């Protein structure tokens, strides 16, 4: 059959779209230019120095945690809509096989074109011709998956996957919080990250539905300490004392779940806290330099803690203002609690009040949420000087299962078997 299709002009509706989609594509497209103009960032010394290269998908831990932080993020949280455990298992298998291909820079299924005329192509096509771009896909399981009467997993929920208390100042939007499953796609090319989420969502229709998603640019943390710490939208280098992706001891102590912690299916996994933190950047930008620096406890230019000369010089906490962000968040203030941070900046258009809807999409990996994020955030929410300029508007926690070992393994196999 020769089916003629007259391409329809975009209707008003397609421009309105669903909250994020239209904006997301716009942001990604605009971001491409930014990426091209950026300095090399911290990849100079990263294991995958080539920003176009592929990151190995298989391994004891999921890629995308200790991996040298890529430039771009597309994070998606899903509700599981099927009630059938077998369908959920099949989805995890299908996603794993798709992720193997995507992270290698291959197309989904039979590709984006060249198939039969009547069938929509398996792959959506927008990443054709782009390199793997260090794409990593990291999957997590939210608390809802373990709810009683759903998939028979109620006995499998790890205690370390703790529900977060309500912190003072939280203004959480349910539509930007929670989720049964998450996929974190990080890549050096925004289009590669978006393509991955889009195709996984498509594979999931009928079994999962996107609950919320977040695009991120401009990594705000690095897991490569020899490189400069990237700046957040306040213009500061934050997260300087992050865990290095090559520091296996610290990773083992603070990020990866050891066998003795249990449950067994989580060995080699981790726990993720995601927080959408809105920044009142216009107010911040009217704040005097001294106050800005007092809020962080660092100088704005070099990023050195008060009384120090260099960014990476260990801070003397007593020399910092008592309510400064660095002092309150520092491991020494928190019984040694450490988080591996992989946050990204975002701007999701404007807020209708003449201001940018901007902020930090905070992602932190840890061995146990109860010992890390909760105590640190409890302290910060109470007294952090930064609270005047930020508001937590979205929140989710996920158990991050261990890595996929080989072609026969799949995400969550140990949990579902």
């Amino acid at each position: 059959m020769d089916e003629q299709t007259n391409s329809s002009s975009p209707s008003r509706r397609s421009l309105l779209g669903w909250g994020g989609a239209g904006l997301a594509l716009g942001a990604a497209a605009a971001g491409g230019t930014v990426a091209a103009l950026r300095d090399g960032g911290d990849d100079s010394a990263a294991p995958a120095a080539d920003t176009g290269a592929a990151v190995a998908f298989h391994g004891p831990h999921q890629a995308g945690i200790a991996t040298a932080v890529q430039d771009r993020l597309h994070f998606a949280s899903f509700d599981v809509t099927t009630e059938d455990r077998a369908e959920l298992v099949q989805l995890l298998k299908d996603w794993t096989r798709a992720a193997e291909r995507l992270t290698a820079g291959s197309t989904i299924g039979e590709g984006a074109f060249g198939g039969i005329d009547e069938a929509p192509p398996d792959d959506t096509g927008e990443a054709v011709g782009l390199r793997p771009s260090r794409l990593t896909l990291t999957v997590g399981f939210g608390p809802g998956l373990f709810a009683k009467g759903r998939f028979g997993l109620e006995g499998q929920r790890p205690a370390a996957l703790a529900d977060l208390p309500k912190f003072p100042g939280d203004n959480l939007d349910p539509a930007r919080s929670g989720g049964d499953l998450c996929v974190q796609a990080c890549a050096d090319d925004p289009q590669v990250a978006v393509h991955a989420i889009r195709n996984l969502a498509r594979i999931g229709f009928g079994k999962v539905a996107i609950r919320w998603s977040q695009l991120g640019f401009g990594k705000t943390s690095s897991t490569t300490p020899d490189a400069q710490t990237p700046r957040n939208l306040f213009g500061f280098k934050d997260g300087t004392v992050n865990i290095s992706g090559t520091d296996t001891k610290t990773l083992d102590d603070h990020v990866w779940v050891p066998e003795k912690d249990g449950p067994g299916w989580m060995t080699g996994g981790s726990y993720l806290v995601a927080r959408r933190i809105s920044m009142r950047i216009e107010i911040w930008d009217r704040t005097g330099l001294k106050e800005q620096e007092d809020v962080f406890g660092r100088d704005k230019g070099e990023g050195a803690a008060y009384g120090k000369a260099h960014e990476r010089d260990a801070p003397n906490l007593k020399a910092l203002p008592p309510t400064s962000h660095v002092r309150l968040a520092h491991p020494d203030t928190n019984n040694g609690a450490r988080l591996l941070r992989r946050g990204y900046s975002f701007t999701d258009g404007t807020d209708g009040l003449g201001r940018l809807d901007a902020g930090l999409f905070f992602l932190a990996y840890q061995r146990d949420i109860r010992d890390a994020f909760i105590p640190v955030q409890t302290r910060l929410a109470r007294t952090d000087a930064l609270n005047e300029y930020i508001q937590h508007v979205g929140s989710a926690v996920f158990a991050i299962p261990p890595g996929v070992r080989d072609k026969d393994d799949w995400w969550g196999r140990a949990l579902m078997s």
Partner: protein
Amino acid sequence: MRPVRLSVVTAATALAALTAVTGCADKSDSKASSGGSGSIQVTAKDDSCSVSKKSFPSGHVELAVENKGSRVTEVELLFPDDRIVTERENLGPSTSAKITAEVKAGSYEIACIPGMKGDGIRQKVTVTGGTAARRSPEMDAAVAGYRKYAQEQADATLPKVKVFTDAVRAGDLEAAKNAFALSRVGWERTEPVAESFGDIDPKTDTRADGLEAGQKWTGWHALEKQLWQDKKLGSDATPLADQLDKDLADWQQRVGKAEITPTSMANGAKELLDEVASGKVTGEEDRYSHTDLSDFKANVEGAQQAYELLKPIASKNDPALTTELDKQFTAIGTLLDKYRSTSSPDGFVSYDKVTKAQRKELSNGVNALAEPLSKLAAAVTK
């Protein structure tokens, strides 16, 4: 509707036997026959339909029709999938007429329809010459079934529309409001066919945002706005009602000639879900009356009808797909049933009472069905 549409009706170049032909009916002899076969005598009676030749060469064909019955009759030359090549309606007792058409090689049927209702009495004829592409009988049956469905929907819609337009003409706002959604059901079920005519849909089903500069707004939604938003009928309400009757009568007349293929049926089913996804789920289709769920249900029913007719073919080629589609059609039906209301004229709750979270659930259901449905065309053509 969308301002610009993909056409469900397509030029069927691959199926030579089903490509466009022109037909005309004339009282007098028209052009000399290039087929050189002379005319074919068709004798229509109340209980029979006889033809003088069952095989004739392709090219210019002339049917000399005579009604020897006691009832008004209709004579049609039909493709194997029941699309009309040419027809003559309203042939009274003891009258004759000549029907001519350019016909390509292939299998056809001549139908006499005493009383002008139903499938009539059929005679199979063969047009010889050339090599005609053939479609499988299963496919022809599927298309014929869908055409019949589309025709039934159109036939059933006109009286329901008249209830609506009569109420408008009578200035009875309440009666008009009650009849509005019900008058749209048949149209919404078969929308891709209706839209395939290109010129009808813009006149009957355009929404305010779909208007081009200078385009006069006519059709259902123009009246919907008066009834619900203005809460009074304008001076143009009666002409709008008359126009809607006229445009939909035109639609009813043309369904039989719509070119439908198994692929266009499958794509039409998917398009109906596209309609739901882009207009109904968002509440934009019936923005004044909030009767979106009635349209939603009709779109899904129309898609399901096309699917059920194609299922015998698709299930052979892709049983996993039809299993999934069965499941998802059931699921969306169950989901819609949650919104049924006995106190509402169209049987569904007002869409402005459906919360954002509920709309998302409906949208998830639409995605769950539309994704496998997008694979139906391939499963039919494999």
